[in-house]
């Protein structure tokens, strides 16, 4: 009789935890971001200075402070302007009213001398309470960035290498064939 009781208790705990999580997530996710992904492809040897706008929205009923940072190998190429700012209080998560927003410029500077490679990383925006304000928990939202320099092309082998590959295949097949023929003869 004990087992069903334990199972019931466990179920209740799991349901409570899920409800708490849903509640917490809905209360924490006050910021919205767009776009969620930035992908760039540039030629090798090309120097790039490009600006991408990222929009940040506040749907929380409290004003929030946002700090931007860049993580990963992509960090060496990106600077954020501004990287810290306040967003005024929003209308609430379920309201249809427009939310206060701010554009952040992501300035991407890629020097000319970089080798062909792929650099990835994330632009992270961390939400914290404004001075004197109160916030239950801080949340983080990210924009995934992928920068591909050049195209890593297929290797073009010279004729003699291709011929050697064919020869190796012939030798391999021949060796297997000869060995089995010898074995058959022995039998």
């Amino acid at each position, binding site marked *: 009789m004990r087992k069903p009781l334990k199972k019931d208790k466990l179920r209740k705990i799991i349901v409570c935890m899920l409800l708490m999580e849903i509640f917490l997530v809905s209360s924490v996710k006050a910021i919205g971001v767009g776009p969620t992904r930035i992908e760039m492809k540039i030629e090798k040897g090309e120097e790039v200075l490009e600006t991408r706008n990222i929009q940040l929205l506040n749907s929380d009923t409290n004003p929030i402070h946002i700090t931007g940072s860049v993580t990963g190998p992509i960090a060496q190429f990106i600077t954020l302007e501004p990287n810290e700012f306040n967003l005024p209080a929003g209308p609430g998560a379920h309201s249809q009213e427009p939310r206060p927003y701010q554009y952040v410029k992501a300035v991407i500077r890629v020097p000319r001398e970089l080798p062909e490679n792929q650099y990835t990383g994330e632009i992270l925006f961390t939400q914290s309470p404004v001075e004197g304000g109160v916030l239950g928990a801080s949340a983080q939202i990210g924009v995934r960035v992928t920068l591909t320099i050049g195209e890593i092309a297929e*290797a073009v*082998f010279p004729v003699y290498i291709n011929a050697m590959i064919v020869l190796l*295949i012939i*030798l*391999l097949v*021949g*060796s297997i064939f000869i060995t089995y023929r010898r074995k058959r003869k022995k039998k």
Partner: protein
Amino acid sequence: MKIKVGIWIYAILCLALVLTYRYYTDMFVPKISGYNLSLWYALGINIVLLGFSVISFRESKLLSLLGIILVPLSTYFFYRSWTDFNYDFLAGFLAMPMILLILGTIRKPIEKQSLVKTLSKLEQS
């Protein structure tokens, strides 16, 4: 037979590596402890050859010793070919399984011939 199977497996692995080099160059770009993956792939394949060479030493000393000598050479050739974009090194890398395949295939008849010769000499004496 062990050494022959070892050489076949080695040749197949070498072919797979060279075809990967040809069609999926991206596979070698990531680096592990400062070296690009070309070194580790070539080393992995050559360790297979080393293993077969060691376990079949009794079967054929010549092929086993040759295998052991070729292991570092083959790894070096593939690594240099990738890092220097020099296909002459790749030719060297491809030559290794070719040599082993030829020697592995003609080994038995040569051994038979030498055995016949020694037997005939013994009979004459």
